[in-house]
């Protein structure tokens, strides 16, 4: 972090104003409806100053902090995917014999306060939606115009496990600027790391000073210490193989007794990307439209085929979700699909904990003696 | 009379030793049927078993209003006739050669006598018949699934 800078709390407000002045829509955290949500910010005054979060399986509550930290929270119900991969979007319209793509006006979006887990999630969405043979051009356009201000975590939440997923708490590459917030009796400051030429340029227009060695060490140390304070952790085993070995595990029936198949986990998960399409016409039938919206593999209709669905039981649908997230994502996209943000744990109405289920699967596999001979299917 | 070579390769006999195969061969002769020949009738006492070599045999039953309905055809490699082995020893369907048919005909009364006298032969022979029967059962069940039916019909 050589050449790191320090912004004051006022400097952060300046950053937001500067981005707005450059034509960015600045999306960042704010308090609304007893939660911290991601919304368009008009100024730094809208940041959730002094708000923290208590998160646990099936539980999320705001609490007042003793300080005025603006990034002292985690695991809100939304992730940044709403702005890159919107929950609803028009794909095309058809009149007569022609198909016209929906043209989104070019919007430049700035994300303020992206955690390491969410930064990793954006990169994974980039692989899925932008890295295949047929990229999602709208996603690619939105991401190309993105300005990312990451936030290093110093206080992981009760459901966080980014450290054991290898995605945090220190933000990985992909940011233009990264801020580590430090607040104490003397000072409320943000140690800034520059991640790109665009970040350098924006930073150069702000009131700032150089960070000294002690400040840099303190910022880095605080984030490193956070790795040891995670609320939970994923077992340190080959999860991809574990799920592949567990297709007939007795766990699925057990989970099915608890899981409501409500799909909350897929909505709050920052990497869940599945979509479905919807067709509509006007009354004359001359004008037709197709739109796309988020879909969940917990929906029975998700696997509709030949008059019925392939995955009818709740057990099979839960198995599909966790297997895709932790295992087959590797086969399809070259990495894990889970970033350890813990949202699925906090926002599950019955408090199912993906790390606990993985642990249980490992125990059941060991108990059954399976997995000792090695994989019998192609990897 | 046929040679043991002609019997080899059929699932019916591949569990028999060379000596057993030789004994069974005594009970086998090659036959031909002209097109339209009725090999046996539904309800008759069941005797005889055929290993089809060429041509097609239709298993059928008469249904008033539908006529003579072919429920199954058998072709080269297929075994025709099992009702001789167990009670009530009567044919369940009729069998007709739909074209010219060449087959190996097993004299089942001789086979039964051989098997009664020597269980060491009877058992593998019964297993061979069972294997053929099982395959036929699986195919019939597959047909019952109506796999090619449309979801609209369900």
């Amino acid at each position, binding site marked *: 972090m050589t050449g790191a800078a320090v912004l004051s709390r006022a400097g952060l407000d300046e950053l937001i104003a500067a981005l707005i002045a450059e034509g960015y829509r600045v999306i960042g955290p704010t308090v609304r409806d007893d939660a911290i949500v991601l919304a368009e910010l008009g100024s730094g005054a809208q940041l959730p100053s002094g708000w923290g979060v208590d998160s646990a399986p099936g539980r999320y509550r705001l609490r007042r902090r003793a300080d005025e930290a603006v990034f002292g929270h985690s695991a809100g119900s939304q992730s940044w995917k709403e702005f890159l991969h919107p929950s609803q979007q028009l794909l095309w319209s058809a009149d007569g014999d022609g198909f016209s793509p929906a043209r989104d006006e070019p919007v430049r979006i700035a994300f303020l306060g992206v955690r390491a887990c969410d930064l990793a999630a954006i990169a994974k969405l980039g692989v899925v939606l932008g890295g295949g043979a047929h990229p*999602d051009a709208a996603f690619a356009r939105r991401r190309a115009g993105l300005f990312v201000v990451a936030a290093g975590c110093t206080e992981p939440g009760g459901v966080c496990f980014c450290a054991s997923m290898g995605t945090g708490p220190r933000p990985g590459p992909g940011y233009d600027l990264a801020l580590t917030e430090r607040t104490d009796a003397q000072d409320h400051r943000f140690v800034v790391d520059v991640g790109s030429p665009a970040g350098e340029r924006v930073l150069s227009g702000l009131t700032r000073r150089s960070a000294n060695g002690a400040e840099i060490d303190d910022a880095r140390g605080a984030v490193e210490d956070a790795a040891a304070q995670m609320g939970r952790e994923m077992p340190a085993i080959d999860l991809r193989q574990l799920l592949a070995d567990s297709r007939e595990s007795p766990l699925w029936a057990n989970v099915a007794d608890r899981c409501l198949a409500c799909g909350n986990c897929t909505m709050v998960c920052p990497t869940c990307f599945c979509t479905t399409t919807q067709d509509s016409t006007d009354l004359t039938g001359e004008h037709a439209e197709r739109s796309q919206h988020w879909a969940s593999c917990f929906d029975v209709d998700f696997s509709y085929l030949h*008059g019925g669905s392939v995955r009818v039981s709740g057990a099979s649908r839960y198995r599909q979700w966790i297997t895709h997230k932790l295992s087959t994502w590797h086969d399809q996209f070259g990495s894990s699909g889970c970033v350890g943000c813990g949202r699925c744990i906090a926002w599950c109405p019955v408090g199912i904990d993906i790390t606990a289920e993985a642990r249980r699967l490992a125990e059941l596999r060991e108990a059954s003696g399976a997995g000792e001979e090695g994989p019998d299917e192609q990897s | 009379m046929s040679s043991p070579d002609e019997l080899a390769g059929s699932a019916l006999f591949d569990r028999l030793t060379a000596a057993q195969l030789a004994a069974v061969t005594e009970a086998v002769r090659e036959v031909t049927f002209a097109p339209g020949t009725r090999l046996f009738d539904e309800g008759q006492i069941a005797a005889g078993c055929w290993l089809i070599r060429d041509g097609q045999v239709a298993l059928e039953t008469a249904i008033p209003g539908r006529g003579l309905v072919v429920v199954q055809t058998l072709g080269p490699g297929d075994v025709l006739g099992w009702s001789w082995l167990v009670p009530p020893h009567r044919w369940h369907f009729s069998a007709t050669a739909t074209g010219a048919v060449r087959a190996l005909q097993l004299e089942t009364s001789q086979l039964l006598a051989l098997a009664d006298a020597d269980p060491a032969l009877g058992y593998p022979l019964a297993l061979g018949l069972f294997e053929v029967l099982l395959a036929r059962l699986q195919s019939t069940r597959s047909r019952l699934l109506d796999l090619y039916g449309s979801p609209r019909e369900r």
Partner: protein
Amino acid sequence: MSADIQSTAAAAVEHDGGGETMLPVPHRVTGRREESHDCVTLRLEPCGRALPPFAPGQFAMLARPGVGEIAISISGDPSARDGSLTNTIRDVGAVSRALCRTRPGHVIGVRGPYGTSWGLDTAVGRDLVIVAGGVGLAPVRPILLGALAARDAYRRIVLVAGARSPAELLFRDQLADWAARPDVAVELTIDQPAAGWDGAVGFVTEPLAQLRLAPAQTVAFVCGPEPMMRFSASVLLSKGMAAGDIRVSLERNMKCGAGLCGHCQLGPLLLCRDGPVVDYARAQALLDVREL
């Protein structure tokens, strides 16, 4: 943002002919043939821009605006290079019904080609055994057309096709033409008794079981309802074929066909990208798991 993201955006625009991955390309229906009471073969020609050529086994996403879009394998001659497409559609739902009801002159939307091909070029010099059940005969027809167009490149060609009844056998004229050829063996069989049919009555695995195969020399292409493919593959394996030489065409719900919507997963496979043609060495374990 980083340079590779920008180049991805540019590539996205260029890749799909300047348009978007999900934007259908208008094609006009120029031919329509009723194959059976619920199957129609449509011949489509591009209204303007043509799509890249489709290989046997690949599929298109066919759209009727306002109704929906479904994945349909190509069923025609793969050597056609005029941009025309042939698809055989069975009326089983709202979208397929709407597609079956189109008439010459109507315009529908097409996206593709998507998916893996039957890989006929990798079977050169070998025996081809093609096993089709019901409407599964449509996706394998391009294999036959392609192989017959270069007949000397292959050794034996055997087609074993099952249908529920004679009336539901597709492409009957072509089946008769192929059966009349000395260099192709055609075994047809029906499941249900039918008046006026003097051919074989039995499940498709029955004539398949009686085939004499040189297993090491054979490539099998199997297409039809999933249980029929499992049962047929089981027969072929018992004849000594390697699972890797048996290719099946798999199906799951598809909303995009392009690897973006996540619907068509079968375990680790995305069938729009890793399928629909999958070799049985990969597919067998997956097909054995219920509700996967």
